[in-house]
């Protein structure tokens, strides 16, 4: 599989009242075409800012460094106008809550076709034809009628399907899905996950799924990057990361989940809470909450290193290494 997106040393500074603070700090990863790449982390881990940086949609006064090479071009170095031609055309976004990400006052037709017409320069009737096809691809019943409707007339699950159709309109190569099922019910979530999986197989579409839900990760992602405090804790194939994690944070997240077989009376939380923007500790950002922390964790910032084939972990003491 060909590499579609290669992110190297991505750093994002956000403007705060105390000056610029790093929301993402030296993040590197690669996404192959046709692959589902998962970015996992709690709120404040920098996962959403990563997606916004790739799209050039960071808040005002935010700065980036590093590289993000997509189809041979560095997204971070592109002029706003050039990046706008990539956005929505080659890279599309699906966000968390379809009831807020679809425009409440515009018809479905406008929302599915407006960027199609802008990017592809096609006429109204052609765009309309494509929109009907798209809506049936995402399994919206009666697409012709749906085009005339407005988002309020659909259920949450249907709205997210429409949002996906909007994202697919210009046949992008990469889809950034930020918590695509978090606002949905679990039975509806199953449908959306299946849809995403089908689309990437049928369309050779690469998908970056950003979520805090390791269950969702486990269902759709091929490879997973676990982020903490704006940095990579661990990256690797789904099965390895979720069954034999090497980073204590990943272990902690998995342990905090209810046990799959139930039974045990209590859950095992990670002590403390994730650092807020601008309050990321020195050294390993996780060390204050880590049961295995040693002196070097407080001083040196760990880089992700290869611990086995395709599996990187940013924990030099590697206390979980023996368990593998």
């Amino acid at each position, binding site marked *: 599989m060909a590499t579609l997106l290669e992110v190297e040393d991505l750093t994002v500074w956000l403007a705060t009242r105390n000056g610029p603070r790093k929301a993402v700090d030296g993040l590197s990863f690669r996404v192959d075409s046709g692959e589902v790449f998962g970015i996992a982390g*709690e*709120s404040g881990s920098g996962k959403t800012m990563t997606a916004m940086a790739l799209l050039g949609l960071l808040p005002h006064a935010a700065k980036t460094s590093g590289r993000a090479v997509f189809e041979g071009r560095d997204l971070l170095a592109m002029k706003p106008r050039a990046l706008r031609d990539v956005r929505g055309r080659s890279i599309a976004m699906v966000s968390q809550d379809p009831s807020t990400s679809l425009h409440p006052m515009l018809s479905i037709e406008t929302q599915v076709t407006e960027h199609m017409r802008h990017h592809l320069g096609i006429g109204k009737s052609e765009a309309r034809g494509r929109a009907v096809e798209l809506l049936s691809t995402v399994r919206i019943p009666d697409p012709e009628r749906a085009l005339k409707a407005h988002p309020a007339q659909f*259920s*949450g*699950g*249907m709205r997210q399907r429409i949002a996906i159709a909007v994202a697919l309109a210009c046949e992008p190569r990469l889809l950034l899905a930020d918590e695509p099922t978090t606002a949905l*019910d*679990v*039975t*509806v*979530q*199953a*449908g959306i*996950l*299946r849809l995403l*999986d089908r689309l990437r197989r049928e369309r050779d579409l690469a998908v970056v799924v950003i979520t*805090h*839900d*390791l*269950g*969702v*990760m*486990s*269902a*759709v992602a091929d490879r997973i990057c676990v982020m903490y405090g704006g940095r990579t804790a661990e990256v690797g194939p*789904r*099965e*390895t*990361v*979720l*069954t034999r994690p090497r980073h204590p944070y990943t272990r*902690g*997240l*998995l342990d*905090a*989940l*209810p*046990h*799959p077989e*139930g*039974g*045990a*009376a*209590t*859950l*095992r*939380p*990670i*002590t*403390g*809470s*994730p650092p807020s923007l601008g309050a990321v500790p020195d050294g390993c950002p996780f060390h204050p909450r880590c049961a295995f922390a040693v002196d070097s964790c407080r001083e040196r910032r760990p880089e992700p290193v290869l611990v086995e084939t395709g599996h990187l972990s940013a924990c030099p003491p590697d206390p979980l290494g023996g368990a593998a």
Partner: protein
Amino acid sequence: MSALLEATGVAVEYHRTGAPPLRAVDHADLTLARGEILGLVGESGCGKSTLGRAIVGLQGTTSGEIRFDGRPVAPLGLRRRPAELRGLQMVFQDPYASLNPRRLVGDQVGDGYLLGGTSKTEARRRAGELLERVGLPADAVKRYPHEFSGGQRQRIAIARTLAAEPSCIIADEPISALDASAQASVANLLVELVRELDMGLVFISHDLSVVRQIADRTAVMYLGRVVEVGPTRQVWSEPAHPYTKALISAVPRADGAGVLPVELPGDVPDPSRPPGGCRFHPRCPVALASCAHDDPPLTILRDGRSAACVLAE
């Protein structure tokens, strides 16, 4: 075991101008004993939160009866809530909305004591103790809610209910607004308190796996009805209602196996126009022809289980 809380045939209707009344809860039955955790699960719009609010009296009921410690619970009007109902408290979903942003944490936690007749300084002192009990520093009394994280705020909200010395807490999605690690610790706190104070807890949640972990019994709601109740372990291992089964198989597991969860086709119907017969029949994978007109009641099965399905034996 006599019931601490007993809801029988509870129905809640919302009246809207220019639209048919919306029956959010339709003849729901629940019982809860001291020291017991009842998980109440279901998808959005199934009426689980409305039922929770009706139980404590924040929502008027159209019919049915709610008894707490043998006394009927009347909906809260403009009058003061009777003292004997103070043992029935509620924890809300969003700790950002359930604490007054402009009042000191200590005052809000101390309210329960103050309203119980304790002096102001004594209430303040005991509020500090309660905050320590739920794992916060005692100096939290002199701070405002915005100085705390989501998990800490939810602990404050829990401490506030404890000041009323409750014997029963209705917790409406108490951990869904929190981060993963905070979720686990707040859920643990609630379980600990139930065991320690011998309270009853109704834990309302859309997150089935948490309920599975902590609840002694689980009740599943669909479109305003309780469709299945039983000991958590049995409900999970052999669900009696097809909806319960669908719900369980839709939960993705973080086991790294890459298995896609099972989809339940169709949408939850409009609660103001529920389908005739069994409410689940249009989406039910095993529906019989008779399900379209026969509405099965919640029937007692063996082992303390009940289900509302003709196929359940």
